[in-house]
């Protein structure tokens, strides 16, 4: 029985993609060759959070006459039942989450400046003040993280701390983690990039996919 349990545990870990403080359990679906996770586990100072995937989709960018595939996005939250799958309600429902994560697997190389400006454009589209210290620190982490490398993953995870603040861990595609502490609104602001007012048509399509949910 012990042996079976050990084998089971070993099998479980082979399914787990370890990425710093966050571990993902693979699901059965893929999008553009990227495996979509079933759940994730986030370990931070104040605890370990189990999160479920609530949606995944492809981020495309219109260039000239074609759409270019940029990354596959996956969204995880610790209280999936409280997530509101409507265009207006999704970001607000992040208030109900103690932890969450966005996993971006890049399908091509994207320069750091371009990642930063695209996030900044999304903040602008949502009337989020980019001078607010938490947002500014997050954008600095994006810049400092360097270029997003193709076939690699960038993780943005958050946990609400006991004092009401939010800890965001930005893990670049090289695996380097940067922690940003911000106010209670920081998590919602970051999730608004994908779940809020879309900054462009590619993000609008992705948002629809994310809200649709995923069947494993």
């Amino acid at each position, binding site marked *: 029985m012990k042996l079976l349990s050990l084998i089971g545990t070993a099998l479980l870990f082979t399914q787990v993609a370890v990425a710093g403080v966050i571990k993902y359990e693979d699901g059965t679906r893929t999008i553009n060759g990227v495996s979509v996770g079933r759940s994730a586990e986030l370990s931070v100072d104040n605890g370990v959070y189990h999160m479920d995937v609530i949606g995944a989709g492809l981020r495309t960018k219109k*260039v000239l*006459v074609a759409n270019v595939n940029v990354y596959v996005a996956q969204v995880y939250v610790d209280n999936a039942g409280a997530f509101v799958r409507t265009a207006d309600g999704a970001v607000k429902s992040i208030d109900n989450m103690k932890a969450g994560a966005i996993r971006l697997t890049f399908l091509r190389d994207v320069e750091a400046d371009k990642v930063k400006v695209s996030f900044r454009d999304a903040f602008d589209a949502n009337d989020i003040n980019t001078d607010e210290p938490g947002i500014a620190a997050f954008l600095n982490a994006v810049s400092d993280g360097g270029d997003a490398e193709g076939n690699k993953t960038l993780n943005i995870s958050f946990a609400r701390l006991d004092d009401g603040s939010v800890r965001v861990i930005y893990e670049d595609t090289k695996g380097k983690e940067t922690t940003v502490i911000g106010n209670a609104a920081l998590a919602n602001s970051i999730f608004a990039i994908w779940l809020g007012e879309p900054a*462009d048509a590619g993000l609008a399509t992705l948002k629809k996919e994310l809200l649709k949910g995923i069947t494993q």
Partner: protein
Amino acid sequence: MKTNFTFILLASLTLIACKAEKAMDNTNKMLKTTEAMNSKMEQTNAGIESTNESVRLQKLILSKDDMLKDENTRNLEPVALGMIPGAKKFGEAATTTELVEFTYLLLKEINDQKPDESDRLENGEYKPEVIAAYDHIKMIKFSELITIAGMAPEEKVDQIIQEQIYGGGLYQEEAYAFLMGRVMFLGTYLDSGILSRPLNTVERMNEAITRLGSIDNILKMPFKNEVKMNVTGFLKRDAIAVSAYAEDGTLDALWNMPKLWKKVLKAFDRDLKDGNIVRGSSSSQKEVSAKIASMKRRVEAYIKLWEIK
């Protein structure tokens, strides 16, 4: 005494007459020489003009060759960056008529050219490699068209508008397509290049404003709803049917000027600040600040004009 005086007077007059005749002769000779010189000058000018025209044509050929080099035609999206230097030179060397004629020619080639019948399989379809090659060649031509349109000097674009659109020229439809190509190219060039990065130097900001200004001019023209392009003839790719304004009057995100100008305006405080001049450089901070202030006023003016609309 009187006789002597008359003699002297006659002699003097004769001498003067002789001198005058000689002078006249000289003048005539000079005139002939001048005429000959003028004629030679005209011949020389004609020769120079002919040489200049040869040089210009040479520039056209070389710049087109440069655009079509293998390494410049491999990656065509988001824009064919490798084609830009050649397209710039082509636009400078070509006349306005040549620019629209070339647009006509490229559109015709893209829309009409088809593979040889012998390239069909037994089921009547073209071979996959033939389809891929043909569509790629057509995309090269399309890229040529829009890159030349995008990089053409502003004064030539204005002239094309005057001659072909307002003047009811032979290539009016192609002129609309040329303008659409310019909007598409510059919109994409900015979106995937300069506007996708912080506008943190004076020249980056200046480049963004200049290029956005080129798009802005076209989108405010009285004939703006006619600015469109319809490219068919691809074997597998979808046709490219694009217009500056959608039927409901909205603008594509790549050339949504009110939004783009606001983005640029924000970048003054966020990215450019005081110009990011490196300490110890020769640039005077005062001059840079004046230039930044002037650019900001231009952007604010563009935004106001869209708000008035």
